[in-house]
């Protein structure tokens, strides 16, 4: 009897197939017959027709989303569930896949759009966003629409993409039935309220009239992430990978778990619960005249974002304090506020315009401390029940004060081997490995290398036949070549096919990964022509754009294309989900 009756091609993960084979392989004919009947029955039960909602056919609702970190994506799946209950027939469309022309026939449209970095669309949405904003966009005359914008007040162009789309849909003839809401990092509650309002406005009139009660948990508590709640981990290894002569500090963290590691896949991230720097919090409390409030100190340290200084913070500071400081108001009105906050933090505001605050007032000018996500730098197939992270300590000097990144500073300065911390898995299905026989090209300068360490480990462990090509860059070859020995081994054992490096501070002219892409353009386009996947991880501000530009130039040069045609070629990679980005 065949001991492995479940074929490798079955729609299960490798380890699941192994488990199934362990059960089904040695099962007796009676056991197998029972299992077959049981599974058939189970299937019928779950797909049994639901009670009819109403007599009339459901109205289609298109839910379009643009996501970078996955928040919009989680919201749309919640919204679709709620929409179904209201008699709508939702279809979810990722902007990455949007054929803009199809919008012409859409009658009901909601858009949940994240803004990324300095007012940019999420990488995956760049193409569709461009088309929608461009001259070729279809008319939307009479279509009902609403926009929910996600963003981060720490960036000056807060929710810029949601705002632009909202205006654009109206300009194209759409009829706004619900006002846009702009959400900050703590989006769950306002997003939930907006979804309810939007669905009410979009639902067929007779349905809305019946006053159906909707009860759905929105946002953060989405069912899909419920099993990914925080888990305890122990730091089993803590290494600053940069040489002691480097000006950089990049920490390789190995986390062990009491039981199984979170079920992560290469490309996923782990979120850390950061803590604010104790000295900074002390300074802040002192500036606010609250130095003796121990409870507040604890709350600020673990629970509040006490560093971000945005226009919103300024406004809220001015309002909360009843405009005691005319200068703050004047600053806001002068239009110089943006320039003033650049390079400053909340502490500067309190020290520059000191007011004795109450604890509540101080809490009001801060927002909840957000988790910080880091790409996982390991594969469970190689490291077992561990997860590795790569964290670059952000340190800089501005306005006479030594500053550091909240999470990275916490890791670098406070954490040590043997300590415990809480982490939470954040899956990223948009940055996953392709089928094992496909070639992959990975561009990951600096900490952008992290997920590719996971990729290479995974492909080594699974014996994937596809070729892999890594581009890495940092400042100095001698002092900043992260995981150098591991890449040398990977090249030797074949899990990495080739590697190109760019170190920016070794030569008079700075050399970056995009220059290496340009140097290697012939082979690169050749790989992509034969179906390779192109991954970019790391800095969103400059690197990701420069890499994309370099790739466009590469296509233009190698294939003798116009710039437009070369852009089209790269856009096609997007469309085929072969240009994948995880940038920050």
């Amino acid at each position, binding site marked *: 009897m065949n001991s492995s009756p479940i074929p490798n091609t079955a729609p299960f993960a490798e380890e699941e197939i192994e488990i199934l084979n362990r059960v089904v392989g040695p099962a007796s004919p009676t056991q197998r017959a029972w299992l077959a009947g049981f599974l058939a029955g189970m299937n019928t039960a779950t797909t049994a027709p639901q009670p009819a909602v109403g007599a009339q056919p459901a109205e289609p609702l298109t839910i379009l989303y643009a996501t970078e970190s996955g928040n919009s994506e989680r919201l749309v799946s919640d919204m679709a569930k709620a929409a179904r209950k209201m008699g709508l027939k939702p279809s979810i469309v990722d902007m990455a896949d949007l054929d803009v022309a199809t919008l012409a026939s859409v009658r009901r449209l909601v858009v949940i759009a994240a803004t990324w970095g300095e007012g940019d669309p999420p990488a995956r949405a760049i193409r569709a966003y461009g088309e929608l904003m461009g001259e070729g966009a279809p008319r939307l005359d009479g279509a009902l629409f609403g926009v929910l914008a996600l963003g981060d007040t720490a960036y000056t162009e807060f929710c810029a993409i949601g705002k632009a789309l909202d205006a654009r849909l109206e300009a194209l003839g759409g009829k706004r039935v619900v006002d846009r809401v702009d959400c900050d990092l703590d989006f769950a509650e306002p997003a939930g309220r907006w979804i309810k309002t939007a669905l009410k406005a979009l639902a067929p009139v007779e349905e809305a009239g019946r006053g159906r009660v909707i009860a759905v948990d929105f946002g953060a508590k989405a069912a899909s992430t419920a099993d990914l709640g925080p888990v305890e981990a122990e730091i089993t290894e803590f*290494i*600053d*990978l*940069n*040489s*002691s*002569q480097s000006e950089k500090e990049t920490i*390789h963290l190995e986390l062990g778990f009491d039981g199984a590691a979170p079920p992560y896949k290469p490309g996923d991230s782990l979120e850390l619960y950061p803590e604010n720097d104790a000295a900074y919090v002390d300074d802040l409390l002192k500036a606010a005249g609250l130095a003796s409030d121990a409870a507040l100190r604890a709350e600020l340290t673990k629970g509040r974002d006490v560093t971000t200084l945005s226009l919103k913070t300024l406004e809220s500071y001015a309002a909360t304090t009843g405009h005691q400081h005319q200068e703050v108001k004047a600053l806001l009105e002068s239009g110089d506020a943006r320039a003033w906050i650049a390079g400053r933090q909340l502490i500067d505001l309190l020290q520059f315009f000191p007011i004795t605050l109450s604890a509540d007032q101080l809490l009001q000018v801060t927002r909840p401390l957000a988790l910080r996500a880091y790409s996982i730098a390991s594969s469970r197939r190689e490291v077992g029940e561990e997860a590795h992270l790569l964290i670059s300590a952000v340190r800089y000097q501005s306005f006479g004060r030594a500053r550091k990144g909240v999470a990275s500073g916490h890791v670098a300065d406070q954490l040590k081997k043997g300590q415990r911390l809480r982490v939470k898995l954040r899956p990223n299905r948009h940055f996953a490995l392709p089928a094992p026989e496909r070639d992959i090209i990975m561009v990951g300068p600096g900490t952008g290398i992290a997920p590719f360490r996971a990729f290479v480990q995974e492909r080594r462990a699974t014996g994937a036949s596809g070729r892999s090509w890594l581009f890495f860059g940092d400042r100095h*070859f*001698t*002092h900043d*070549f*992260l*995981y*150098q*020995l*591991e*890449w*040398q081994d990977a*090249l030797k054992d074949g899990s990495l096919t080739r*590697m*190109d*490096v760019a*170190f920016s501070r*070794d*030569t*008079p002219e700075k050399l970056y990964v995009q220059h290496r892409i340009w140097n290697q353009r012939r082979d690169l386009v050749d790989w992509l022509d034969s179906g390779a996947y192109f991954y970019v991880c790391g800095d969103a501000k400059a690197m990701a754009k420069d890499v994309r530009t370099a790739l466009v130039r590469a296509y233009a040069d190698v294939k003798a294309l116009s710039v437009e045609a070369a852009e089209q070629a790269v856009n096609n990679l997007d469309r085929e989900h072969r240009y994948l980005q995880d940038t920050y």
Partner: protein
Amino acid sequence: MTKELSRNERIKEASAYLRGTLAEGLREEITGGIIEDDAQLVKFHGMYLQDDRDLRAERVRKKMEKAFSFMIRLRVPGGVCTPGQFINLDHIVRTYGNGTMRLTTRQTFQLHGIIKSNLKATMREIDAALLTTLAACGDVNRNVLCNPNPYQSRAHAASLALARALSDHLLPRTPAYREIWLDGERIAGGEEEVVEPIYGKTYLPRKFKIVIAVPPSNDVDVYAHDLGFIAILDNQHEIDGYNVTVGGGMAMTHGEPETYPRMADVMGYCRADQAIAVAEAVVTVQRDWGDRVNRKHARLKYTIEDRGLDAFRAEVEQRSGVKLAAAKPFTFTSTGDRYGWTESDNGCAHLTLFIENGRVKDVPGGVQWLTGLRRIAEVHDGDFRLTANQNLIIANVPKDKRKSIEALVAEHGLTTGASALRRNAMACVALPTCGLALAESERYLPDLVTALEERLAAHGLAEAEIVIRMTGCPNGCSRPYVAEIGLVGKGPGLYNLYLGAAFDGSRLSKLYAADLDHGAIIANLDPIFAAYKSERRDGEHFGDYVIRADFIAATVNGADFHKDTGARR
């Protein structure tokens, strides 16, 4: 003899005239190193693969290979370069190097800390400056030294011309250097073509060093090199001819008494116009007679010991067609440099600067050697001369330029001297870059000198000229075995102390005490200083005194270097 040739012989043989796989290795981006065989070959191109040994301990944990970089040694015959060339080198070390230059004991520049990805750019800049690194290291004739002798301009001009001619004549002819570093294309050539008429496919058995001395100065340490020419001047101060010395060399290995430093023998006298033919014959006899089985027995000094000077001389005479005459009389007085300004018979002035251990760098808040010398190079029309004592001469300064150069010297804190012991001190590079170092040298000697100066001053010997030299290993780059006080690294923080060499470089020293740490070095020397102060005769040098006073036995030559060692009193 069926003994197997040494590994380096096989590497040379298979290298296709020093190519090996260097071109391929340079394209390997993910390692800063090159494979071991190529690391041997790259020496012939003037560089050593090194790594920062200070960082070794942390690198594996940080998942990084050794902190590799290359040391590039130039070939500057006679140590003479133009100010323009100095400016080029200044640019290179600031752009690709570690921001310092090292003036060596063999009158050349060493550039440290150049990483592999910058090698070609560096080599192209060196070439553009009309400088070369070919054969600065390796089993070939290396840089040819000559006395920089600014105050005897005609003798210097003649000896410099000979140094350059010898250097050119004995330069490897392989096109590999241009191919690998400059042009990138392999120049086609039939296999049967004679690529290296002097060296052949496997070059020499070991390194080969030539110097030219102009008495009374023995600043080049003529006896410490494979081949030496001692200029014999006629009464018009022109060089008439040379006494030829053969078989000097410093290197030995701790614990292997069959290895030893040796002073060269004076083989005879040749006319100036015969010097090149004699040199070529010495090189080819060594090429054919030298030991290619045991690299520790491969220098010319062992060939001379094994075959005897007479047989060697006969073979050289036969091959060169030059009948050597009896050696002519000469006198050496010292090995040191004359610091400060000197004037010469051509009406120019020359400024000898004292650069401690030859390290040209800008010290934050201190002396600005690199910047200062560059500023001088920008206004100077004469030449720059490196001395065999790791110092620099701003040579051929017209009288009207003296003031401006003096001003730059003062502005950058440059020095034209030091205490008696310090100005007679030399150290090799050693840690952290030299792969051979067993102990510190350049980074430690200045502190030791400070401590010894304190002892000397206590005995009223502050003005005593005593030659002190230190190396981090027994290979002898700073020629410690011809120093009156020689210190040779044995292990971290430990040194062997050698005494009894002659002040003029004409006699080797001998092991006085082994495995001394800082305190023990001082404790051993202090009582000898005290005795020297009270017992020394008029003008008696320290090295001569310790033998007369029976602190140590005299070493007559290499073969008895290891005999009768240790303190006798």
